[in-house]
């Protein structure tokens, strides 16, 4: 019995292969984008995890100060289980150098190769460093490496003494404080005067947190794509159920129990899950493989986090892909199954009646939508924490999506009222009638468009603000890094009458409000007065800073500790100062503060100025840097041109744009597919609706043209509504999510030209989606239309 029923049910798909295709493709697209994004996220996260295993430093308290390896030995001999660490860049590269002591550092897979005597000997002797295999080629000349799979890309592990030699220092950055079994030891800060104990950095401290926002973005994209896909599936499933109602009725009349029928349909859903899920996972792999290099580049550029560019296929993703596909189908098909089980199967499918039934649905949608938007507004004012931020995003998007159909209805009613000609009037009225059938696809389109606008606005704002800020902060034309203090003095003397100004850059490590950060000393100079944008400032801020009356703090510190002008900030060994101003400091997870140069030297007399910012006429930059390099035999990385830094930063953003752009295009593509699928399935139902018009004297070409206009018009209206939603989304990302994730807030910048372009794409997508159904209508044999009027319908 079951087999016969399944055959009868399956016959539907044989007769409507397009519908089957729609369903499977919709499911596959949804699953594909979702798993693709998940795969990217998983890959990136596992890279961080590897990095964390290598360093294991974020979870441990540390001792900082001006430490040497002798301090390390002294602490060990006093019974402390400490291990020295150096963290820096390999000079002349973007690689991160991590120096460690293999005998006392927390064990990890990264150092496994040191079990080989030869490797250990070479490692201790500084003859080899450990890096990920694909980082080997990036090592500078003079550094030879051993490839290790457990190490995150871009990290260079060296013996602590070797790292000191590479950096030409006898200092270490910190002592990691591991659990010490004994009590009653002399406190480390007493043992090593001038040192400070730092508890593990909490918020804003680790790579994972820094990149969270990026991944949340991606995840949001993935979910969105999945939602868009679900709309497609929902529409296709709904239609398949609707169309098979007579069949269900017949089957039941022939004695098939309702439960068996439901079971058959559930089996059908399961089969579709398998098919759509499998295709989707393959698709997801392709998406991930295509996008991962871009993502890796972005993460590396933005946050210094390195992600392996190769993709590993984990069984977890297969499962999660199928789970998502299954969940999607269950959501989409569940309602239909429930209807089947509870509603009388005899209810006829009448378009207008269907629409009428939807009126109450629309009202409910409108109310829910308004409620969600109100919730979003409340969250916008009160949200703290990433979860709340994302709830806000969800409420905003869902609310807006739910409000779309009622709003469109309203707009179309107004339009119909203003219409004069009968055809225009019909067009408006007909568009209204199509809304229920198209609403899911239009909602998907709107979600895709607003996500597009929101994310590009966010990234654009970020880029605009960041580059503007770079322009201001990197006001000096040249940045110099002398090898030592005596060379620094010589360079300063050398430059004195060759350039406009030589501004020393001095910095010290300190605990700012208890968390590690840097303090800089600032020479009072017009360069800063003119170029530094301050978010908050007291009057006459620069003179007061120069006079040593207070400190400037970066936005991260200000937000995290709530220290603004009018309050005091505790700079640890730097002292306690009134806050004179707050400046933007994008890309820096740590707290930072500026003191006037004199005040700084008072507090940190031993700090030497080996770095300089040099002001020089732009046309002389090249000449001066060449003179410097030749006179002092400075390595190329010790003279940095401002333009290079800016170029580097811009490249990072271009890559970010490429990734978001690709995801944007994919999402829009999925939405267009949803629209096409809806229009195509609706076009089947449309013949009886348009046939009378044809009979009354409109040509098929005209009707097809009107259909096209209607689809494009609906897309246009949707796009118009998507713009404010997108801006709201961008605002939520910038003002709520970003602040929570990064600790800084970006001004919202709008890019109306982008909206026009995007709307253009939306119209194009809608036109493309409507083209095929319209063409079918246009080319429809009159005999098919006439059938509508035939008695034997």
């Amino acid at each position, binding site marked *: 019995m079951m087999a016969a029923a399944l055959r009868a049910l399956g016959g539907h798909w044989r007769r409507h292969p397009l519908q089957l295709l729609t369903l499977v493709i919709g499911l596959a697209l949804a699953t594909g984008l979702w798993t693709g994004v998940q795969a990217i996220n998983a890959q990136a996260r596992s890279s961080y995890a590897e990095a964390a295993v290598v360093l294991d430093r974020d979870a441990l308290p540390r001792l900082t100060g001006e430490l040497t390896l002798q301090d390390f030995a002294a602490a060990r001999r006093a019974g402390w289980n400490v291990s020295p660490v150096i963290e820096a860049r390999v000079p002349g590269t973007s690689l991160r150098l991590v120096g460690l002591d293999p005998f006392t550092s927390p064990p990890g897979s990264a150092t496994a190769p040191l079990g080989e005597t030869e490797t250990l000997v070479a490692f201790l002797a500084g003859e080899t460093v450990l890096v990920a295999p694909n980082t080997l080629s990036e090592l500078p000349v003079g550094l030879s490496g051993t490839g290790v799979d457990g190490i995150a890309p871009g990290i260079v592990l060296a013996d602590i003494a070797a790292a000191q030699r590479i950096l030409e220092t006898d200092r270490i950055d910190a002592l990691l404080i591991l659990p010490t079994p004994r009590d009653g030891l002399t406190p480390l800060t007493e043992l090593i005067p001038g040192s400070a104990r730092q508890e593990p950095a909490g918020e804003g401290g680790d790579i994972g947190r820094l990149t969270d926002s990026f991944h949340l973005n991606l995840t949001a994209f993935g979910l969105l794509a999945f939602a868009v896909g679900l709309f497609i599936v929902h529409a296709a499933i709904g239609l398949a159920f609707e169309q098979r109602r007579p069949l269900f009725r017949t089957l039941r009349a022939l004695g098939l129990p309702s439960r068996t029928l439901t079971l058959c349909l559930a089996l059908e859903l399961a089969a579709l899950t398998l098919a759509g899920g499998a295709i989707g996972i393959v698709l997801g792999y392709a998406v991930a493989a295509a996008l991962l290099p871009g993502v890796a580049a972005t993460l590396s550029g933005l946050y210094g986090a390195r992600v392996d560019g190769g993709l590993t296929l984990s069984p977890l993703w297969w499962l999660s892909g199928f789970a998502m596909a299954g969940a999607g189908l269950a959501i989409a098909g569940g309602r239909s199954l429930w209807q089947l089980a509870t509603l009388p199967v005899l209810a006829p499918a*009448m*378009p*207008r*009646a269907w629409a*009428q039934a939807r009126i109450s649905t629309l009202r409910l949608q409108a109310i829910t939508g308004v409620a969600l938007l109100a919730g979003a507004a409340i969250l916008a004012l009160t949200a703290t924490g990433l979860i709340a931020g994302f709830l806000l995003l969800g409420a905003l998007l869902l609310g807006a999506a739910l409000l779309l159909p009622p709003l469109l209805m309203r707009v179309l009613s107004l339009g119909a009222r203003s219409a004069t*000609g*009968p*055809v225009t*009037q*019909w067009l408006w*009225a*007909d568009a*209204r*009638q199509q809304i229920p059938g198209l609403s899911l696809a239009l909602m998907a389109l709107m979600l895709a468009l607003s996500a597009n606008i929101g994310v590009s606005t966010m990234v654009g704002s970020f880029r605009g603000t960041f580059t503007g800020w770079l322009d201001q902060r990197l006001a000096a034309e040249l940045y110099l890094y002398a090898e030592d203090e005596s060379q620094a003095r010589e360079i300063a003397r050398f430059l004195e009458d060759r350039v406009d100004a030589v501004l020393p850059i001095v910095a010290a490590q300190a605990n700012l409000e208890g968390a590690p950060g840097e303090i800089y000393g600032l020479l009072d100079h017009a360069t800063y007065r003119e170029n530094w944008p301050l978010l908050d400032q007291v009057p006459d801020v620069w003179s007061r800073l120069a006079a040593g009356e207070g400190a400037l703090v970066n936005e991260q510190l200000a937000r995290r500790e709530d220290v603004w002008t009018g309050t005091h900030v505790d700079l640890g060994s730097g002292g306690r100062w009134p806050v004179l101003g707050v400046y933007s400091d994008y890309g820096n997870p740590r707290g930072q503060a500026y003191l006037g140069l004199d005040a700084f030297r008072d507090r940190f007399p031993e700090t030497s100025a080996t770095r300089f910012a040099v002001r020089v006429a732009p046309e002389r930059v090249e000449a001066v840097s060449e003179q410097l390099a030749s006179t002092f035999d400075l390595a190329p990385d010790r003279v940095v041109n401002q333009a290079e830094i800016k170029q580097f930063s811009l490249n990072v953003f271009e890559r970010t744009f490429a990734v978001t752009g690709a995801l944007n295009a994919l999402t829009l593509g999925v939405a267009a597919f949803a629209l096409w699928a809806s229009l195509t399935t609706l076009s089947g139902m449309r013949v*009886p*609706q348009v*046939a*009378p*018009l*044809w*009979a*009354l*004297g*409109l*040509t*098929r*070409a*005209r009707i097809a043209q009107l259909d096209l206009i209607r689809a494009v018009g609906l897309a246009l209206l949707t796009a118009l509504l998507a713009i404010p939603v997108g801006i709201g989304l961008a605002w939520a990302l910038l003002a709520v999510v970003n602040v929570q994730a990064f600790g800084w807030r970006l001004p919202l910048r709008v890019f109306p030209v982008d909206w026009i372009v995007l709307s253009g794409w939306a119209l194009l997508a809608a036109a493309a989606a409507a083209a095929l159904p319209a063409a079918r209508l246009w080319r429809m044999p*009159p*005999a098919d*239309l*006439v059938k*509508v*009027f*035939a*008695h034997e*319908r």
Partner: protein
Amino acid sequence: MLLSVRDVVKTYSTADGPQVVLDGISLDVKAGESLALTGESGCGKSTLLHLCAGLDTPDRGRIEIEGTDIASAADAERARLRREAVGLVFQQFNLIPSLTVRDNLTFHARLAGRGVDPATLADRLGLTPFLDRWPEQLSGGQQQRVAIGRTLAARPRLILADEPTGNLDEATGDAVLETMQEAASESGAGLLMVTHSERLARRMDRRLHLRAGQVA
């Protein structure tokens, strides 16, 4: 001659091979004249009506409306004729579901570029209370009256009706038919009605019986 059909042949291809539906039909309808087209189910009478309306084209033969051969006319020209010269009434009413009764009533007339007062029309057809309703909220008779009203409002020279009362009970059907005939004679339009009912056919000026695609 308002409508002139000459030697029209129409063949449909079916699963069992080509099937001749109309096999050399000729007929004429003069202005102000009503003609009933009767015959068994499947004799081709609806097809003939659709051909006359330019909804489909004959394989052979000529169909002229006011001297224009619609069989060879372009799609746009046939559409224009339907808009301006022909009024169609179907058994299934075929109202436009997205428009209200008022807008349905005036729709055809406005397409034809003719002004119309829906209130007067509705009054005459007894539809005044329903002007702001949607088609599916009306009974069958009411819907057919709207369909007829829609056709009359457009003041066509030729009314083509396909079993207009087929979905209505006898009394309603009679009333609807009466309205249609009245209006046709008032405006001097020709009326070609397909029906299988002897009773209704007798109420027309002439009748033509089709059998197996030929005039019997």
